[in-house]
């Protein structure tokens, strides 16, 4: 690939990054909604919950949740 082709790839990445983020965020909230008790139990025990998403398991810390609603 030459520089021009690589720059084209970069611009595609720029366009898709926010879409990735939105998709992962919606997967996280869908999981919380459907498995509220399980997430709650994990947060009580570890102050963090493992959320499975198509981007892998995401560790959601209690501090992340507090920051999100602040």
């Amino acid at each position, binding site marked *: *690939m*030459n*520089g*021009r082709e*690589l*720059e084209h*790839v*970069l*611009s595609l*990445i*720029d366009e*898709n*990054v*926010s879409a*990735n*983020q*939105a998709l*992962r*965020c919606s997967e*996280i*909230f869908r999981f*919380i*909604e459907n498995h*509220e008790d399980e*997430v*709650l139990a994990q*947060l*009580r025990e570890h102050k963090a919950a493992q*959320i*499975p*998403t*198509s*981007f*892998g*398991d*995401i560790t*959601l810390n*209690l501090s*992340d*949740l*507090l*920051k*999100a*609603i602040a």
Partner: protein
Amino acid sequence: MLTLVVTSLVAVYLLGPDLISRWILGFVVPRKNLIRSRGEEVTRAVLWAAVPLAIAVFWASVTGVLAHEGRLGDLRIVFSGLYDERFFEAHQNEFFVSLKSVFWMNVSLLWRLYGLVVSFSLLLDGMILRYRWLRNALRWRWAKTVLATIVLPRASEWHVLLSDMLLPSAEQRLRADVLTRSNVLYQGWVQDKMLSADGHLESLTLSDPRRFLREEYKKDAAVTPGLAHDDYWRRIPGNLFVLMGADIVNLNLKYVEENPLAEKPSSEQIELLKRLLDRLKEPE
């Protein structure tokens, strides 16, 4: 003798700058090696040396250094003496006086030439190391294309794709889905890669790896259409998972924000989180 001198001049003026620049670029990035013919190698070296050489000649001429060290006549005497033995025997004194001038003319040109090549190569190293920052700082698409054209073709494509060079920001990480020749799909965070001397991918190291249970999923999906695939990923125990480059059929790279809730959640999502946190405060 003339052949020996001309060969040495070609080496120090044309091939040397190319070698030095390759060596310096190799400090920061695995270079892309292309299989070229000798003619293509020489053409590339000539082009790579031509611009700094022209600048070095201009620099030495404008400052008067070149004229101070010697004249064109000195060059004529030296090359005539090297070419024709009879001329050398007839003008031995002039030959050695001119040889000294020609030597210092070359010295004044060469240190400028190598200084320019080393400076430009170090600048390029800096641009490679700070590529993400530089690219984000540029507003115009054409400027980004110029930057990519200068910087990226000198690095192995695998390094460009699998390092943090292309990550839009420092808060993002690179995740990969890797399909192997044995038709197994793996997923994990890209931790490291090994490249061969010619820039090809030797191995890819994933952290937090997991494997997709394709057969089980296919079997269950035949019974339950629209089955979610999330439950069919199995964690692979271990810290780092190394996949050999020769086994990789394709790669799906994802640029993922490190903070899972980096974007402000919607009002419904905030309500959900508040409900969860309220329940957390309640006694078990």
